[in-house]
């Protein structure tokens, strides 16, 4: 009985210790926009049927993403810190269609600043993808990982491709 009571006391102390312990720590420095574009909560890539039904060629887009993009940008669209930019919650994906189409067609080797963080790896060009394929994969990333933006059409891709 006594042991039990002391056990409770011990438990109480253990529970209280962290409170004191943290209280004594140096105040946490504000880290600079840490992971602002990278939501630590994993976003499932399997969107509900009701949503995907409205997105043109979502399944084709997902298949293209899996083949060409996933290894760097990851299944979560979260990218890789410092190396490969995230695709979620960023103007590069959700903003002007032309910029996104250009990056897919022509690649990018300038190093991008995305949501206050820099990413160093080069993005290869994908000129071998058809207008349809670029449109499907671009539409997929604009509507996955929590993103929501207007679909991109093959005609819009063709227009940018012809601009050179």
């Amino acid at each position, binding site marked *: *009985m*006594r042991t039990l*009571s*002391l056990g*409770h*006391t011990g438990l*109480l*102390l*253990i529970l*209280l*210790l962290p409170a*004191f*312990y943290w*209280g*004594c*720590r*140096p105040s*946490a*420095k504000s*880290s*600079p926009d*840490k*992971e602002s574009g*990278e939501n*630590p909560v*994993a976003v499932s890539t399997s969107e509900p049927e009701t949503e995907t039904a409205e997105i043109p060629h979502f399944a084709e887009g997902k298949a293209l993403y*899996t*083949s*060409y993009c*996933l*290894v*760097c940008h*990851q*299944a*979560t669209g*979260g*990218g*890789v*810190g*410092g*190396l*490969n930019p*995230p695709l979620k919650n960023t103007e590069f994906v959700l903003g002007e269609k032309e910029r996104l189409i250009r990056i897919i067609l022509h*690649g990018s*080797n300038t*190093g991008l600043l995305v949501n206050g963080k*820099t990413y*160093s*790896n*080069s*993005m*290869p*060009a994908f000129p*071998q993808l058809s207008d349809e394929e670029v449109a499907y994969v671009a539409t997929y990333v604009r509507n996955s990982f929590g993103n929501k933006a207007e679909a991109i059409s093959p005609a819009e891709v063709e227009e940018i491709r012809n601009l050179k």
Partner: protein
Amino acid sequence: MKKLLQKNSLTIALLCLTLLAGALTFSCKGEASGKEGKAGIVLSPDNEGIKVPDGFHVIEVANSLGSPRHIAVNSNGGIYVKLKEPVDGKGILYLKDTDGDGAADTSKGFGDYGGTGIYLTDHYLYASSNEDVFRYALDENQEVPANASPDTLVYGLIDRRTHNSKSITLDVKGNLYVNIGAYSNACQKEDRTLGSLGLMPCPILDSAGGIWQFKTDKFHQTYGDGVRYATGLRNVVGLDWNQQANALFVVQHGRDQLHTLYPDYFDQQASASLPAETLYRIEEGDDAGWPYIYYDQIQHKKILAPEYGGDGKKTGGEDAIDPAVAFPGHMAPNALLFYTGNMFPERYKNGAFIAFHGSWNRAPEPQKGYFVVFIPFENGAPSGDWEVFADGFSGKDTVHSPDEAEHRPTGLAQGPDGSLYVSDDAGGSLFRILYDVKDGE
């Protein structure tokens, strides 16, 4: 009787709390006044979620540090942390645990540049940006005096974003070794691009993709003043001088994307495990073979890279060195430390610890790494298989994408008592691994 006991235990609880509060208040006051208390190490009941062998303990020294890369600990237990990006304009932090409870309680910063490399001797602190190496003179406490301005030892090293960390170590003869990573995956004409062939010869190797040697006591050195000590190393982040072998050892990040670039030769599974991440013993003039070959840890062979006519089977690189140890691919070895302390059991003495940052290029296969491994050494050479020493930094049973990982091991340092420190550039934490200590000791 029951009531009495309950009353007693309540009294004891209150008494304990009062005493505890008193002790902690003292400890906090101690911090404020900078006086040294003797609280003793406060162990973590769950080792901060990190799995270590029996008898070892893990505590968190600090958190919310930004992106700490390499670290160094001085003879008083003060910790220098090189930050990838400056926080509040400070690229190097100096942390101290003045009351001895294991948690850092004072912090100051200096150096307005981000980077990775840091190295400490009795009299100097060396630190690197992504282009330069600086040296700070230390005072009698092995601390950098306030407002100290560093000497520039090396400047103008190539930084083209990819693999731009300038990791550093020293030998005992006054030489400084700097990794200059290749700004490319496989030296293709167009980096990471399907169908783009490898450049022959690879032009990157004249100024990157190797280890350069400079002097520790000469100022304003650049390429012409240094020696290309070793070449054919794609990207080395972890390197250390082995005193027993009297030689440099480095860990290389192997190339990425065998499957996406050459789907006819490599399926997804092969590409997830190949090529090896490699530990090399380096002698002056060595060539590890990148980009022309890679090391296949399953075939135990140097294999011709597909960009240079390889198919996953043809061998190559007859003149290239073999690794001392080959690990599964893509786990990203970011720090190497030869353990010379006395705290850990005897078998760890002179062995190698390697911090693996954790993979991304295994996707869509589950990721690997996010741990610290140990390799026993005898007489300056590996004497046994590698083993996982500290695991669970990711905080997940399975990591599918690196952004799911809570912590990613990045830097290693040995404390004066023989503790092993591990930095984490993803979660911003600093851990300390101890052996044979009791709570409050």
